[in-house]
């Protein structure tokens, strides 16, 4: 009889995931149901106050803003990423373009955000250019509002959307498009009805890879946000830990983010399953 070494082989990964992922999540989950300590930390007393605090109009407003910003960023990212990925997949210089997509990763994320400050700032390149060209007299405030947050989020997560789209489009059999057109569809129609369903997995991954990180964004709204409509859930968590020392509320908020993103993942799994089932049906 052959002995099953599966557990042994997966032990290192299992331990890693347990210690650095599962344990923290369990701690955060537990803390969200405890009472807040006077100076931060928690008191070991069951309490639902953190979740009750979420019902405040202020918090709900921030939740809605966060939703809207990350949805807008996701849709915009997809709109930009699709043509990019399509062009890359059909191009002869695929590896060059792939390399170009990866280049931003060679620079630190924060430094790239600061670069956006230098570009869009009140005394930034863009404003200087417009003023010198005589198009405007005083600076336009591009930064420090929700649109700046959305633009920088789109920029930040664009590569994560392009790559899965590229890999599915590349595998797509383009002769299918010709076949569709031979059968009388218009060019856009063939893309919409033949290509999109075939690269669905790529689209769903692209959406998830943008929506999940943007929903928990912290640094981007902090650095290029401002005004009334760019304070996001990530900023609440930092505030509650660093300033208000309300650990349970910070934990509850991050549980909420985890739940929303897990729900998104759940939809992904469901979509994949139904796609697989549809494919199965076609074959039989």
């Amino acid at each position, binding site marked *: 009889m052959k002995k099953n070494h599966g557990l042994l082989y997966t032990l290192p990964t*299992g*331990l890693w995931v*347990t*210690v650095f992922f*599962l*344990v923290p999540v*369990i*701690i955060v989950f537990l803390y969200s149901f405890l009472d807040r300590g*006077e*100076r*931060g*930390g928690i008191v070991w007393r069951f309490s639902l106050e953190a979740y009750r605090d979420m019902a*405040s*109009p*202020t*918090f709900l*407003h*921030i939740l809605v*803003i966060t939703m809207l910003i990350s949805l807008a960023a996701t849709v915009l990212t997809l709109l930009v990423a699709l043509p990019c990925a399509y062009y890359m997949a059909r191009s002869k210089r695929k590896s060059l373009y792939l390399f170009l997509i990866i280049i931003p990763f060679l620079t630190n994320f924060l430094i790239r955000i*600061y670069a956006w*400050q*230098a570009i869009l*700032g*009140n*005394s*930034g390149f863009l404003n200087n250019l417009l003023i010198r060209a005589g198009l405007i007299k005083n*600076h336009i*405030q591009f*930064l*420090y509002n929700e649109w700046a947050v959305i633009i920088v989020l789109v920029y930040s997560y664009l590569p994560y959307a392009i790559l899965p789209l590229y890999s599915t489009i590349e595998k797509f059999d383009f002769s299918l498009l010709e076949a569709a057109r031979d059968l009388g569809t218009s060019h856009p129609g063939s893309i919409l009805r033949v290509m999109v369903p075939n690269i669905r997995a790529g689209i769903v991954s692209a959406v998830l890879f943008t929506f999940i990180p943007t929903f928990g964004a912290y640094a981007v709204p*902090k*650095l290029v*946000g*401002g*005004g*009334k*409509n760019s*304070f996001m859930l990530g900023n*609440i968590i930092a*505030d509650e830990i*660093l*300033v*208000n*020392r*309300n650990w349970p509320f910070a934990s509850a908020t991050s549980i909420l983010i985890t739940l929303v993103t897990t729900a998104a993942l759940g939809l992904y799994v469901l979509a994949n399953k139904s796609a697989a089932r549809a494919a199965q049906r076609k074959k039989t």
Partner: protein
Amino acid sequence: MKKIPVLAMAIACALAIGVWAGGKGETSGGSKVLYFYNWVTYIPEDVLQTFEEETGIEVILDEFASNEEMYAKLKAGGAGYDVTIPSGDFVSIMIREDMLQPIDMSKVPNFKYLDPEFLSKITFDPGSRYSVPFFAGAAGITVNTRQVPAFEKSWKIFTRDDLKGRMTMLDDMREVMGDALKFLGYSVNTKNPKELEAAKQVVSLWRDKIVKFDAETFGPAFARGEFWVVQGYVENVFTELDEALAQDARFFIPDEGGPMYLDSMVILKGAKNVENAYKFINFISRPDINARIADFLTIPSLNTEGRKLMKEKTAYSYEDLKRCEFKEDLGRDVELYESIWHEIRIGK
């Protein structure tokens, strides 16, 4: 049943980490050391060297960036420090939590140099039984006079239409709310809902004129010419400026005053080198040493004799600080400020 081993593993790991963290003990037998837990760049290196040369006591230095960080580390236990420098609100917390030793002032003769007028304002440790004041300071406003030649030394600057989109304030609820409260003539530690509501109205007006609440990037952005009027700590701005702009930048604490901080030296319960701690605290309070530190920080000294020995010009004067008020620990009432602050942030 796959779930049980994972959960058991999780619990075992959590326990193991707890045991490992708790079992870390310090056994320093020698009395020629001092474990000192200080703010980042708060005392120049050469001052510590002088102390080591004069006393033969080696200072083992560890640094923190915020009161919360320091407090959390001490509370977690097993740090083994002798002396640290918390801000006032944390001194009161640490006294209540029984983390500090009473100070025998007969061992700190240099305490007499500390400004009595300033000492009388201390509410977090009345009579200085547990703490020896180190340095005090306050946030203020830095103005780029190239762009803004004329201005009043008042918080009113944040309602100026012509500066809209060129100003920032700290992303710090106690500071900004404290400014508005002082502007209205109230205490920065008020718990009166009516006064807080009035302060909220003031901050809302400011919010509409400033670019953002920012505690990280306003210094470099001021240096780039992006922002012309920024509220914050002087060292966060001037360290970023080239000489020309430093000449044209003015820092002031508004006439209405604002909140201020006072950091004090304390000896921790369980300190193993208490005598060395006294020597160190007395050394730091000596006028010539105090003046060297004040010159390094370029902020006013609380040491009446030390002030006379200073060589550098400070960004603001001791008189400016007199208009300010200490931030006190609000305990759970901090929630009053929290909800107002979040409402301000989303424009409600």
